[in-house]
């Protein structure tokens, strides 16, 4: 979905190491960097693997499914682009729960947020960046 908010969110500076991540949503798929030698996911992206120290890392498509491990409803206006209240969450990716993303959940009732809530990625297109947001997986479709 396109970001049609009146004010642009603050956006990340893209470089040759992180561009794959922030533009991965162009085809609707989430990718995380993975070491080709030891298969360990590496996030945030960097040129070498902190586990085996190889320098051969490649973006790897993941399922886009995740679990909520932390959240808050923010009520303070820190930035003009974000009108409170709004939710912020940290999700653990199902492909490797040690991979975490800070994100926003797409839902209407914040009371629906709970620890362990199953969610899936839905990208928000902002200029040249696709922000990975997450929406609850309807009951019966999880797993």
């Amino acid at each position, binding site marked *: 979905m396109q970001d049609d908010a009146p004010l642009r969110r603050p956006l990340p500076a893209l470089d040759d190491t992180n561009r794959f991540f922030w533009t991965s949503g162009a085809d609707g798929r989430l990718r995380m960097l993975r070491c080709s030698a030891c298969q360990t996911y590496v996030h945030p992206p960097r040129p070498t693997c902190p586990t085996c120290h190889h320098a051969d890392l490649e973006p790897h498509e993941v399922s886009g499914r995740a679990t909520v491990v932390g959240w808050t409803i*923010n*009520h303070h206006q820190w930035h003009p682009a974000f009108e409170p209240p709004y939710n912020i969450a940290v999700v653990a990716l199902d492909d490797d729960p040690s991979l975490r993303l800070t994100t926003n959940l797409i839902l209407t009732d914040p009371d629906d947020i709970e620890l362990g809530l199953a969610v899936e990625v839905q990208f928000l297109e902002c200029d040249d960046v696709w922000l990975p947001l997450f929406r609850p997986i309807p009951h019966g479709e999880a797993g």
Partner: protein
Amino acid sequence: MERFEHSSVLRGIGMSQVGRRLMRDPMSLVHEACMAAIADAGLEVSDIDGVTTSPGAISGPPTGYTFGGAFDVVELLGLTPNWVYGAAEAPGHSGPLVDAMLAVAAGLARHVLTVRGTWESSHTALLRSGRASPPTPAGRLSGRAAWHAPFGAMSPANWIAMQATNHMSTYGTTREQLGAIALNARANAANNPWAIYREPLSMADYLDARIVSTPFGLYDCDVPCDGAVAIIVSHADSAADGLHPAVGIEAIGSAIRERISWDQGDMSHEPLQQGAADHLWERSDLRQDDVDVAQIYDGFTFNCLSWIESLGFCEVGEGGPFVEGGTRIALDGELPLNTDGGQLSAGRLHGYGLIQEAIIQLRGDAGGRQVPGAEVAVVATGGGAPGGTMLLTRTR
């Protein structure tokens, strides 16, 4: 076991005026604190041969977070030190004290001045009135902020709130339990003449306050203020030369054993506390039972609760019941906590109000808030960014 910390003592302390919107040049606050600490130590300015501070000089327009760096202190006091060091990347807010102890143990300096000053309250007021230059207009984000700010996660209030919700869901921790930390701080602040907020705070006041970022309301958050604290770290062989009983450093903890990240680790506690906590006990024969007073970083109530667990004063997940009702952490409880009122009520001096209070308690000079016979204090600062711990003693 002999440790490098034992080469040093904490010989002098000095605090500037502390308050909200003082509208003073922060260097005048730093000067006041430094001169007070040097006098308190029974030293002359010319005796100071080392300076440490945190976070050190920051490029760009002032932010209010700090006054400047170690070089500014040298210029301010007209020093000719053998060694100075100022840096943001340190084990906790107490990192510059560790740097000072290392320099003393190494023989590089004998009397190191460690100072931390902040003027966040006045700076915010100056920005609002157009009397200070705003921060450089934000371009694209880099560093850690790039992973949080695009989602509106702008503040530690947001990052730490998400750990607090995890803790509450995982262990059943309640807002009233977090509130016990805020109420305890306020009760202690009533006996501290420099504390900013000293009027009584009830649980109803706490629960009814405006929400900042769930589960945190206003009274879960510490108080931005103006002020400076200076501490003199001297060689232990000069301990008897001071005007006050010197405070010893039994051990410090500085280890990093988790990802340096707000979101890439276990969300059930504040990150980067456990390493510094475990490291402390690994480096000392003292145990939790030996601690008489705890000065623990309370930027938010949850930081403090998480440190209590990390330091092993209770099991992980039991922090809520541990602080519930406030009896255990009260001045006459088994673990008197943040006896100055902490940052929640006394003001956010980025750890240095807490550290100074530990020294005052061990000197026995805390007046109406004195823990009788306090001999061992634990200090914990930071978390989220790497934490740091210290065990301080009246005698060693």
